[in-house]
């Protein structure tokens, strides 16, 4: 892995089209600004991993039977505290 040292306000250019700027450093938190074309998706790693894992688990082969839903019981979307 390439390791670069940057100060707040300094940037890194990737492939001439993606600019990553160290926006602010506060204690152990770094705010990073990313300028990328719309065709370059940018995700937080843990969110990407979670959705990727979910997609892989959801992939079906063949023609599995689908469950019957209880139409009278919509379950509320989970909202963590």
């Amino acid at each position, binding site marked *: 892995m390439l390791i670069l040292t940057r100060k707040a306000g300094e940037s890194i250019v990737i492939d001439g089209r993606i600019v990553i700027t160290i926006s602010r450093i506060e204690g152990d938190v770094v705010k990073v600004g990313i300028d990328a074309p719309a065709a370059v998706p940018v*995700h937080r790693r843990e*969110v990407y991993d979670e*959705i990727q894992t*979910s997609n892989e688990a959801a992939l079906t082969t*063949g023609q599995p039977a689908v*469950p019957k*839903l209880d139409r009278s019981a919509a379950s509320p979307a989970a909202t963590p505290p």
Partner: protein
Amino acid sequence: MAIQSMQTAELVEKQAATANEGVVIHLPLGLLGFEQVHWYNLWALPGEAPFLWLRRRDDCSLGFLLISPFEHVSHYRPDVHQDDVAYLKLNSPSDALVLNIVTLQGNGKATVNLKGPLIINRHTRIGKQVVPRNAADYSVQHPLPVAT
């Protein structure tokens, strides 16, 4: 853009049920983990409502089970980033078809991914799996109310 349309995917569902090969959906960025697969068919099979199938065009034995979430999950209101709204060329929430990927968990149970909805422009049939601004409020394994 907050999307909470109770309007079902009716038009697309009807076409997906009647057209020979379903409705062609283009995902230029693929799904997360499946970035290289860009072309799918959307199918609705008789007796399987409210579920839809998103099947790979290059191998229709591989696919994903989808559901339009709003009738089955209350209080779901994905807030789509302005960048994604612009990318998908959505002029209003009604342009967006929101479908979420279902995981069959075995033993008859099923969960739905509310954190990474698939948003499709109804008119262009171009879609993207987005991470809404309020994704932290939602689960990737939200249980669906399966009839017992």
